[in-house]
């Protein structure tokens, strides 16, 4: 029981740390806090998960309720080649060249789906081999 409580507390505190971190970064990027959702896609990390993020970007780039943050990018030019999307033509894509959105946890290698209400982060989930955050978001958007 004690072990379960400690595990729960540990996971929960890490998630809260991630929420606080993104919320703090958002306070310095006020425009991005106007979206209902933020999808943060790292350029380096879990290859398959990042590919899913890029595919999601391609499919939902016209959805103006979603803001896309590209962080830890090795090349915007190659990303545009891979996705066929011209970044300058979409106001809801933000290239985070300062790497401000890289979360300071082991989850920084995964794309992240952030839910925003009243300009603050209310929840977030990572697209990892264990957690299908992007599929969950698609299902929510279809409701």
């Amino acid at each position, binding site marked *: 029981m004690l072990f379960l409580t400690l595990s729960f507390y540990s996971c929960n505190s890490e998630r809260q740390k991630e929420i606080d971190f993104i919320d703090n970064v958002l306070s310095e990027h006020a425009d991005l806090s106007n979206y209902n959702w933020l999808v943060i896609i790292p350029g380096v990390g879990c290859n398959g998960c990042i590919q899913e993020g890029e595919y999601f970007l391609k499919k939902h780039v016209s959805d103006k309720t979603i803001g896309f943050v590209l962080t830890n990018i*090795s090349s915007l030019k190659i990303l545009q080649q891979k996705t066929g999307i011209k970044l300058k033509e979409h106001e809801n894509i933000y290239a985070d060249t300062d790497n401000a959105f890289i979360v300071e*946890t082991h989850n920084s290698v995964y794309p992240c789906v952030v839910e925003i209400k009243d300009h603050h982060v209310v929840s977030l989930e990572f697209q990892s081999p264990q957690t299908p955050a992007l599929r969950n978001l698609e299902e929510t958007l279809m409701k």
Partner: protein
Amino acid sequence: MKKKLYNCILILLCAGAFIACKRSIVITISNPQEGKLHATHSLVENGEKVFELDSVSAPKAVYMQFCKIGEKDVLSFLNKYNSSIYLYDYNEGDLLGIYNFGKDIIKPGAYYIINEDSVYVLDMAKMNLTLFNPKQNAQTDVISLKGKEGKDWPIKLPQYNLFTSNPIIKIGDELIMTGQLFWSIPAKAIQTFHFSANIGIQSKKLKFEHCYPEELYGHDSNWEGGQQTAPHATVSPDGNLIYSFPPSHNLYITAPHADSYRKVYGGSNDAGDISSIDYQNKEETPEDIISANYVMQDMYGPIIYDGYRSVYYRFLLKKVTDKQKSNSIPNKEINIVIMDKDFHYLGETTIGNGKKWNIQNAFITQEGLNIEYLSPENLDEDHLVFKVFQLK
């Protein structure tokens, strides 16, 4: 009363256990020459080289090699996006050709051009070294880097994060790849884990060599994260390997197939104490603590020998003092320590931070030390730009 005392002891024991759980054996490496070295030389930026890129290639190439092919000075780079090596005339800036691997090589990570017929390519997906013949557009040989280990080879054998300034090295008839363990070195493996792979070009024999120095990485010290356990290598004029370990002010000299090091001082006048991470449960070390250990301390990087001027250049990534930037490696200022061929200190030059310079792409030409410059004007990523530094 007895019950109270018992409870008190229990609480103290729990608190002790908790504190013990969080602390670890911390190795601290001091710099005996900090502030005592006298500079006679420096590096001065003098000229640049610009190479025009096509629509599917970008700056910050993951791997490059400067070499002579025929009479030409050739600068080549790896394009992971289309699995190719691009070759440019270094002096004229013209694109000479492209070696495309097709589907033979799944995930190229590094290469060594022997000549126009033979290019060794590290395939990170298959974990092998493939001999590729660009003229025939075919692979002609494959050497597995997994040795005889089973499925757990990633924890028993080195993994490779090679780049231009920590390249595949050729000494005689052997290729040497400096790999690493991507987490702390377990005490029981300090004398058995070898980080360097030695491949006989003719014999095709694979041998793993060179252990982590115990005084830096032993005693189950916590060096999580992968950056602090990345040795960088270069070759001395007499064919020895010179290793630069990120936390050490010394350099470790050895020969291929040797099993001991000779240590020489090779540090910076600016670098201070460097310590391992103070966190007992290594596997559970929080990412921000790992990051701060690397970013907020001085750490050494690649070392390059300049055969034209008989000097060594060793990169130092200086500590960031602003806690707000404790997770950002590009914020580290870069010093280049200059040493003569006998490792005597000649001086050092600060060039700016990693937002401006990509020291992973640094190499020597007759003109000087070339370092990739990340130009803020190059937003369209149409050019590969190098600044050339000369010794003064």
